[in-house]
């Protein structure tokens, strides 16, 4: 299955290898791995999500990517729950004949995932956990894909 929403960690190398295994037509696999970034007063964060809607939105985003680009495979894995600094959060990996499609689709997927997938981040802080607000930058990066070139 190419879309997974899970508590458990994942293995980027195994996912990249699986995308090209037995596929002599695959010339390029691009991937993005997102990590929990640390700060002085935040040793961990907790990701809440909307079970059901998350999988549905990720599937819709994947379908759109496959319509836009000629892709041989897509894997999207997103974790939820409590994640300490340095942990992997999300993987997007895309296989294609050519690198241009693989790069564009990978960036498209992660931009949309950050603005459309129903995840909410709570950071540990000195005054207890606090909800993180959405960043305008993420929305403007996702908006790029709506413009006609």
């Amino acid at each position, binding site marked *: 299955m190419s879309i997974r929403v899970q508590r458990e960690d994942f293995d980027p190398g195994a996912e990249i290898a699986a995308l090209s295994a037995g596929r002599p037509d695959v010339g390029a696999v691009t991937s*993005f791995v*997102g*990590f*929990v*970034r640390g700060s002085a007063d935040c040793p961990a964060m907790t*990701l*809440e*999500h*909307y079970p*059901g*809607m998350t999988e*549905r*939105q990720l599937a819709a985003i994947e379908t759109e990517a496959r319509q836009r680009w000629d892709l041989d495979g897509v894997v999207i894995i*997103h974790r939820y729950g409590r994640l300490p600094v340095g942990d992997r*959060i*999300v993987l997007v990996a895309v296989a294609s004949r050519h690198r241009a499609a693989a790069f564009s689709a990978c960036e498209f997927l*992660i931009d949309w*995932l*950050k*603005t*459309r*997938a*129903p*995840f*909410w*981040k*709570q950071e540990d802080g000195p005054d207890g956990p606090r*909800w*993180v*607000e*959405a*960043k305008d930058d993420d929305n403007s990066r996702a908006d790029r894909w709506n413009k006609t070139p």
Partner: protein
Amino acid sequence: MKVLYFAWLRSRIGTGMEDVTPPPDVATVGALIEWLKSRSPAHAEAFGQPGLVRAAVNQDYAAPDHAIAASDEIAFFPPVTGGMG
């Protein structure tokens, strides 16, 4: 009608899910928000800033004028903040 809350909406309202039966004239997402605000001060506060609340009907994003039915699953939540980097 099943109503779900996520993130700080859940914290403020004090529950992640409630079954509600609004009157028949509550026929859109926007009307449902107005009706939910009348249920408790916590609801009123949670929905106090409409720009900070997003809605989904049956797990798809929905605008305030989206129609709703008794069998729908309707969710309210803040703008998403997933992923990293």
